[in-house]
């Protein structure tokens, strides 16, 4: 997916100005960058919630799933119904039921299936939102800090789940996070954003294949990338 010289500003705040990046199809691109730089804005531009003022984003006309930075659950629907909401009129009832039960099981919300969002803990809401984002078969998957609010174990589980899904449907994934380790664990391409308007501070490719990245001999290589990225992020913050 090619982002071609896009320009966008929030009111008088220029976020992107003639900004271009390439997001390889069917690969996972991670985006790092300090708070308020424009990561969420980029995702919303790709999802067409915002319209670019100039330039083009090629390939965003496909089926999109978006995990928002906030859970955005319908307060008057149960967890099950919230997930079902995005499948209605797309699948038969039986099929829906099966898929939803399955995904809720995988994010660990089976017991909360019939709870309303206000009855959930923060991490549970996040998992419900993850279930909703993962339940379809999207061509483009936009994830805005998907693992926030989850404990270490849940983080690993969701991480696994993401890689399984990616393996199965091969969507183009854009994955925004603040955690360098997380980025290295899933990203095939890692971008660090900085500045206003946004510039790419650093672009890294991680050549170790997904989904397994824990072979002993890779550790040093990955550690190197990690340190490089951390340094870049600190630099970015200072500008």
């Amino acid at each position, binding site marked *: 997916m090619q982002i071609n010289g896009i320009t966008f500003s929030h009111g008088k705040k220029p976020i992107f100005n003639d900004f271009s990046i390439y997001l390889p199809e069917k690969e996972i691109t991670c985006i790092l960058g300090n708070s308020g730089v424009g990561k969420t804005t980029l995702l919303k531009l790709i999802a067409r*919630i915002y319209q670019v003022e100039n330039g083009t984003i090629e390939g965003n006309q496909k089926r999109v*799933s*978006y995990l*928002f930075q906030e859970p955005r659950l319908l307060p*008057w*629907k149960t967890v099950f119904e919230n997930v079902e*909401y995005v499948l*209605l*009129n797309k699948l038969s009832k039986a099929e829906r039921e099966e898929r939803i039960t399955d995904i809720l099981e995988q994010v660990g919300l089976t017991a909360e299936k019939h709870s309303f969002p206000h009855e959930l803990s923060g991490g549970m809401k996040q998992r419900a939102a993850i279930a909703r984002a993962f339940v379809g078969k999207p061509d483009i998957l936009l994830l805005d800090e998907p693992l926030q609010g989850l404990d270490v174990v849940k983080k690993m589980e969701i991480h696994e789940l993401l890689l399984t899904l990616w393996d199965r449907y091969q969507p183009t994934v854009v994955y925004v996070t603040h955690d360098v380790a997380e980025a290295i664990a899933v990203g095939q391409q890692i971008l660090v954003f900085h500045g206003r308007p946004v510039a790419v501070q650093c672009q890294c490719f991680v050549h170790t294949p997904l989904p397994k990245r824990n072979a002993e001999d890779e550790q040093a290589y990955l550690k190197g990338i990690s340190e490089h990225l951390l340094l870049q992020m600190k630099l970015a913050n200072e500008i």
Partner: protein
Amino acid sequence: MKGSTSKNDKWVTLSAIVTLLFIWWIASLFYPPIILPSPAETAGKALSLFREGKLLGELVVTLRRVLLAFTISLMVGTVAGAMIGKTKNLYLFVKPIITIVQTIPPISWIILAIIWMGLGGGAPIFVVMIATFPIFFFNAAHGINQVSKELLEMSEIFQVKRHRQLLDVYLPSLWPFISSAISICIGISWKTIVMAELLSSNSGVGASLGLARLQLETSEVLAWTLTMVIVGVTCEQLFQMLSDKTTVGKMSKCK
């Protein structure tokens, strides 16, 4: 307004009504029956009207008019308000028109209404529509701007069909506004139809009430009023029950 047994609810409603009856009864002790008959006299009169068959006959006429007018207002007003409320300029254009229409007293409409719709019952229907439509309209127009943009964005991205969005996002968000408008309009429609029938028609409860009034039959006036009140409150209770039972009503309470 948290959940509770609906049995309790009924008792509360009942006790409210008993309280009112009691106040009425006390008040009636201070005035001669021609000014304020007692609840008993009024009920007696209502009963005798019922036996004559007049009560039900006129009530049905009025009921049909109100139902028609109310339904049209509800549908058109809510939909128009919701659609127009979203577009600033259109809303600014329509708003003064509706305020004007609503400000014009029925008495000024009546002659046009009679000419357009005859003495049958068109005019009362028209007047009730004019009285209730703006309420649905304004409540929906204000409500539509309270619908969460975030949930709508979410729905768009997941390509949720329009009608599902209406049902699952718009309706629950608008519900407090719509149900408020319904509560208000149930009372208003019954009141307005009486005035309108009194001014322009020769059938229906309003016309009978007008007649009774000119004949100084205060107890009959109150009997008709009582009938309207009972029907009105019943409607309101029915609506409440329905609303509590249907998903939308339950939905909008989860917030």
